[in-house]
């Protein structure tokens, strides 16, 4: 009993110091204006200033696009992975890049997409000429999708892998062709995998700021970039915190929307 209490108290301590306290501080800070007064001007500004609203829209729009791209790549990938012979090995190879620091990967892509990089070299060799690839929205989304891919594949892979093979047989037995079986059985039964994948990808994508700068060339300004600017450049910690609070609220909303709903029943 005593040992259990000890473990539990260390968990509570961790929770207090590294989860609740920072959130409380951010929340408090968000009500402090640039002059040091306790007001709600920061929130008023957020919803009044068009730039912030555009950033919010950009964040949601690009996070949505990134999530959609990763989902479209991940689902078929995960599906075929479950049908390969050495599926655990292939899965490992997909997970492997997540062990590398995101900054290193971003720099790697700068090299790949640069004027004299391998992509442009190949394009030239094919006679298509060299193009400005870096610092475009396309390259930003591509790299973001690449980085998020394993986090989307993993939950979907697990969901498909756990799917009972006999349910597929039943569906075929009852007259459904392959497509109908996918649409009526496989897809709805792996929806929870998709939902957790979307959560894991969409929420971090909302506040991407390093990639927007390094790969996207700051053409897309998201809320993540705005927070960074407010804290490090304009030193308006209150406004930065306010955006942080709004991001947290958005995350909670997304979690709530994609969370597992309790099935109706009597």
């Amino acid at each position: 009993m005593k040992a259990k209490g000890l473990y539990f108290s260390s968990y509570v301590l961790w929770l207090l110091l590294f989860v609740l306290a920072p959130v409380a501080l951010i929340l408090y800070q968000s009500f402090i204006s640039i002059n040091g007064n306790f007001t709600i001007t920061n929130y008023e500004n957020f919803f009044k200033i068009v730039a912030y609203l555009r950033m919010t829209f950009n964040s949601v729009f690009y996070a949505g696009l990134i999530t959609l791209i990763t989902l479209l790549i991940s689902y078929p990938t995960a599906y075929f992975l479950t049908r390969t012979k050495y599926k655990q090995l292939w899965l490992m190879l997909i997970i492997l890049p997540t062990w590398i620091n995101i900054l290193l990967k971003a720099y790697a892509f700068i090299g790949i997409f640069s004027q004299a990089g391998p992509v442009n070299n190949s394009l030239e060799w094919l006679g298509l000429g060299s193009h400005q690839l870096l610092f475009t929205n396309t390259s930003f989304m591509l790299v973001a999708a690449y980085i998020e891919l394993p986090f989307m594949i993993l939950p979907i892979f697990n969901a498909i892998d756990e799917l009972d093979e006999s349910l597929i047989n039943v569906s075929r037995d009852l007259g459904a062709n392959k497509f109908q079986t996918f649409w009526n059985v496989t897809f709805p039964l792996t929806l929870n995998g998709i939902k957790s994948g979307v959560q894991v990808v969409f929420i971090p994508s909302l506040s991407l700021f390093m990639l927007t700068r390094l790969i996207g060339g700051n053409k897309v300004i998201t809320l993540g970039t705005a927070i960074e600017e407010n804290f490090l450049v304009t030193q308006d910690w209150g406004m930065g915190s306010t955006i942080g609070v709004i991001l947290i609220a958005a995350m909670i909303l997304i979690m709530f929307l994609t969370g597992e709903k309790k099935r109706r029943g009597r």
Partner: protein
Amino acid sequence: MVESIITFRNVTKKYKDTVILENISFKLEKGKFYTLLGPSGCGKTTTLSLIAGFMEESSGDILMNEQKINHIPANKRKINTVFQDYALFPHLNVFDNIAFGLKIKKKSKKEIKEKVNEALKMVRLPDFGDREISEMSGGQKQRVAIARALVNEPEVLLLDEPLSALDMKLRKEMQYELRELQKRLGITFIFVTHDQEEALAMSDEIFVMNHGKIIQRGTPTAIYDEPLNRFVADFIGESNIVEGTMMADEQVKFAGKTFECVDGGMEENEPIEVVLRPEDIEVTTAQKGKVVGTVISQLFRGVHYEIVCTDIDGNEWKIRSTKKVKVGANVGLDFDPEAIHIMRFNETETEFYQRLENYQGS
């Protein structure tokens, strides 16, 4: 010639280098209850999967209504399956599970509703349509699975050990219900089980399988009373199998004596095996018995005692008796000539039935 609904012509199924089914041929008649019976790994479920279309045969032909269906996919066959683990869709409720096949076939809402409700009534689960699958008991799930298959009005219903997950009492109940349902609907049922009692109780005809081959086929009584070999005799019910010699037609020697029997058609002095069912042996006094044995154990089984004796040759005899005996006592074992069944070594099914016909005909 009765119309055959499913025909196997020299069907072989290999998985890599392992032969799962070896050159199987049979014809199934419309409207009968067939059982594929055998130990696990005998190929019975593979046979079912081939009929359903979940697997493709390595060689040979499968016919339905005299039409080749080798390359027709499962969803185009007028065959439905009830799976061992029910395999109900967890994301759909009872109604939608049963309606699945009809919705795929794009039937009208009204028709679906009518048919599903009818199917629910048929399996005695009216008013259960709104329930979630997780709210149903094992027996109820079983019935939903049956309703889901039958609502599509298949010509053949395949049942893959559908009762194995149920408790004893429910199982017996479902045996009656299934048999009843089959008779009422007149659909051909192909039932797979490893439970010999289940097979004997329900079937019109049983196929006993082992190692990818059909060992013996016949009505339950034929298979029980005249097993082809040691495997069938052992697998179907309990039996005493002793070695003996065929002296002449209707004369068999075992346990040191020659007895009158009803079998014949073997060679003179041919070594054979004798089968005597435990319930066909009666315990009497040592003087009256045809074979004398010493009781080595007695077990009370409720309906009867299970007695084990050894005779002077060292043969063990299992007996079912309602009379109690004393362990260690010498008792006599009595049996009728009809109770003795003779099995030849390495006789094939065709040879066996041929001999029966020839001998009884002469």
